[in-house]
């Protein structure tokens, strides 16, 4: 059939572009999640290490842990949610565990409505004597 096919490319483009943008957003989101993951890991490691190095016996090491973790989180990126992150320190018998939770906003359009925020958690345990 030899009809006029003007504008075929445009129509195809219009149909393809949303998929492209969706995939692109997914890639960016994944990178953001990985970033948050290793930032949280490093923050928890620094917090645990600061706690066991600086803390003396009657004092609680939570203060030092939070300080070090906040330092890492604030230096990490411009994402304001990283500063809302939750830092938790808990005593086990001979170790100290720091858990850092960073909330990351979900940018994927329809998935947005069901899962608005991805919480990214990481924790480290270091021995305390």
């Amino acid at each position, binding site marked *: 059939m030899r009809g006029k096919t003007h504008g075929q490319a445009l129509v*195809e483009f219009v149909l393809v572009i949303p998929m492209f943008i969706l995939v692109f957003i997914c890639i960016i989101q994944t990178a953001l999640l990985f970033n948050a993951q290793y930032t949280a890991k490093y923050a928890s490691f620094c917090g645990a*290490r600061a706690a066991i190095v600086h803390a003396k*016996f009657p004092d609680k090491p939570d203060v030092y842990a939070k300080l070090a973790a906040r330092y890492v989180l604030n230096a990490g990126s411009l994402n304001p949610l990283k500063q809302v992150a939750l830092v938790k320190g808990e005593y086990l018998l001979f170790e100290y565990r720091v858990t850092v939770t960073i909330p990351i906003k979900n940018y994927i359009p329809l998935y947005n409505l069901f899962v608005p925020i991805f919480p990214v958690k990481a924790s480290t345990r270091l021995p305390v004597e």
Partner: protein
Amino acid sequence: MKKSKGQTTVLLLFFLPIILLILAYTLSNGKLIYKRIKLQNATDGAAYTAALWQARGLNVISDLNWCLVSAYTAETLTQNFTYPVTKSVILGQDMINRTFPGTGALAGYNNFSRNFSNGKVAPLSLSGMFSLKVKRFGKPIMLQYMVKDTETAWVNQRNRGPFVLMIGFAGAETGFIGANAFGFGIPAMKAIAQAMPDKEDTDIRKLLNEYDISLVTGDLWDPSYEPKLIPVSLGLTILSKGVLH
């Protein structure tokens, strides 16, 4: 008819470098942090191990001092180290105790300054002790620890004992194109750790056992040295600036 196949490929060609850049950034950051954590753990472990060996040495010295005192006195069986232990034995043990607290068998001799004229001497007074009031299941009990901050002593107790300063270094990694291709290489990095054999804050047994222990007469209860990671203090001030990166 114009062929219009492959238009999506052009779009991909436009987006591909962006995607690869994001990927390279993410992966290089992750690898960097992994390496940094491993380096710091290695440095801490090395410092801790060195301080552990020092602590073992000091504990051996402590035990040997007890043996010496036993050998010099007649009260070997009863372990009753009061008079007539010889004055020189007591003075020697007191000096050792001030230098490495707890390694000497006896401490707290009264006329220490008159018998050792070199250097200044701090009198071991109860007012200088670091005391901790602890409330447990009942009325509060008073635990007395050793003297923590003496201004002047035979040896400055703030820097007592040996300490270990360990510096770790990891070299740069060669990347796919070069070490710093497009800024995504893994550069060289360093880590620092300090450890010390310490005797005081590690003893939770005192708290658990409800002993009200006064250490004026010496560590007859015999807690021993253990290694401890401390904030990095290269002599005077503590470097508490956060994380070295």
